């Protein structure tokens, strides 16, 4: 088990390193330095600037310096968006806003998606199951920005019942969180349904039934425990989805979180900010995958039994 965890951590570290290198390499590919602007500075000024920021050194040395600084939590300063403010400060200011919306959406997706999946499995083949399955299939096919904009039109423009901009009151959380959580919710529901149907076919469920336990207790207690395993493994991709889906939702509802800011920095080519945010988001996603991988082993003891004690 310890060996497995160590292996996973190593793998995650390699991934983060790889992403950092890709990001750095891509940003270096762009012709023209960061100091190029309309009024071209003199060569002496450019040389001085390049020396100050270490840009006169070979790329490999720059990469090494960048990685060392990044490992210490120093991603440099923003070039354009908020001139000379450290990227880390900007991220720590904006990320909590995105994280709040994302966390609510995540909790919503799991807390609603799992029961829906159970209900579908409970009423397998009946009208309730069919209706819910149709809804969750549609929910998977609709892109997040379509859900978000349609909600905006209906509740914000036509009926005017919900605030459309920013996050001021609790009502303003409803639309962003719902549109962000709809796709994962439907996905979780489908996952739960199919793994629940697998579980229901197993012998231990027959035993429980033979003992005379009521059906809803069998489904929601005995079968649910085992059906949750695929849902847990989905939490990794789910986090990645919510972080990137946040870009769209924050754009539609004008929320000043990290997602919207990241897209703006992409459009404005603020390279240190882009690099810092990319690496930061990648670390979150990779860490989440790591936790999920380990959790998966902890939750499902069968995986260890087949492989023996390691």
């Amino acid at each position, binding site marked *: 088990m310890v060996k497995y965890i160590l292996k996973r951590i190593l793998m995650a570290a*390699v*991934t983060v390193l790889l992403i950092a290198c*890709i990001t750095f390499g891509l940003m270096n590919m762009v012709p023209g330095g960061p100091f190029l602007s309309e009024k071209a500075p003199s060569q002496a000024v450019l040389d001085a600037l390049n020396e100050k920021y270490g840009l006169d050194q070979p790329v490999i040395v720059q990469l090494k310096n960048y990685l060392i600084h990044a490992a210490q939590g120093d991603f440099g300063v923003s070039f354009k968006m908020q001139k000379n403010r450290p990227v880390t400060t900007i991220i720590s200011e904006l990320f909590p806003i995105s994280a709040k919306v994302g966390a609510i959406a995540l909790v919503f997706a799991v807390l609603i998606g799992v029961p829906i999946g159970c209900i579908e499995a409970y009423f397998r083949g009946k009208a309730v199951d069919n209706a819910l399955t149709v809804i969750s299939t549609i929910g998977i096919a609709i892109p997040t*920005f*379509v859900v978000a904009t349609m909600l905006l039109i209906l509740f914000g423009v*036509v009926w005017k019942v919900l605030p459309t901009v920013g996050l001021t009151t609790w009502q303003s959380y409803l639309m962003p969180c719902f549109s962000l959580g709809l796709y994962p919710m439907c996905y979780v529901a489908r996952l739960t349904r199919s793994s629940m149907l697998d579980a229901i076919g197993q012998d231990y469920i027959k035993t429980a039934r033979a003992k005379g336990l009521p059906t809803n207790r069998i489904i929601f207690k005995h079968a649910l425990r085992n059906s949750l395993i695929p849902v847990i493994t989905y939490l990794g991709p789910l986090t990645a989805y919510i972080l990137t889906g946040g870009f769209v939702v924050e*754009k539609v509802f004008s929320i000043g979180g990290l997602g919207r800011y990241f*897209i703006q920095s*992409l459009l404005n*080519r603020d390279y240190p900010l882009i690099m810092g945010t990319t690496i930061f988001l990648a670390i979150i996603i990779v860490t989440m995958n790591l936790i999920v991988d380990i959790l998966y082993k902890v939750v499902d003891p069968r995986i260890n039994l087949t492989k023996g004690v390691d």
Partner: protein
Amino acid sequence: MRDAMSPGFGSLQPDMESILAMGQCPPFREDDFEPATQSEKETFIEVRKSMSYWQDAWRRLKKNKVAMVALGVIILFLLFAFVGPLFSPYSYEQQIRGAENLASSLAHPFGTDSLGRDLLVRVMYGSRISLAVGVIASLIVLVIGSIYGSVSGYLGGRVDDIMMRIVELIYSIPDVLVVLLLSTVLKVPLQQAFNSNNFFRFLSTLGPGLISIFIVFGMLYWVGMARILRGQILQLKQQEYVTAARALGANSSRIIRRHLLPNCIGQIIVTTMLQIPSAIFLESFLSFLGLGIAAPLASLGSLCSDALNGIYTYPMRLVFPAVILSILILAFNLFGDGLRDALDPRLKK
């Protein structure tokens, strides 16, 4: 109601009535023991047409109502996107003076945008772009994924180990982040390439966003296909016909091309098919954020993005492309699912 003397099916008690009735069968006729005549024999031989794999799959697919409806919708969309513009009096970039910001009417069924462009034609072209992106991206995935997966699975051992480690690594890279980065970074170098080289010029209309989508599909998205194919090939290469082919002197590449890949064709088609909606999804996501297709071309995502600016005054402008995009993705998903059930019935739950 059954009486006690004739217990139902599955009962351990003998069914007395039927035992007694056995003796009362009609008496034999005289010709009952004659050898069968030629004409009689022929009526027993039933020639059934042999069914190929594709006919069988098509038969199964036809029974699946949802998949057939989805197929119909896809065909309608193909017509809408590729034939539709021929019947429209406007072009997608034509700006009609004095016809700005029109609501739906007979002349402009979807209305016009703030520059006076007919939205119906723009949506048609947008669907064309979205469909083309989906198909091209999944073809890229098909080629790279199937080559990588089959080589890895066929060679096995150490090579397979290393190749699969690479796949795992690529799998854990957040794809959307890389697409976003690439589309930003590629903008300038691609623009230079377009201007300097005639070969690249025809690509320049697509814009860096689309090209970076293709590059990312080529770099990152093939891993799913590679994994699936590797699993298939690992199973198939143990089969006798592979041993037979090798005994007859076929080399590895011939075995993979002629024997192994054709036997994975179902999996390959289904995976490619399901890649199309995910590519459309990704393209619309990028275009919505303003990093995808370059103006004046439009895709469904960029049309939604354009409409977002005037959402309070012209909400309908957003509804058309958004609904069409959703239906398109839904139809491809449902058809892909149906195709999987038809081509590989073992996978059906």
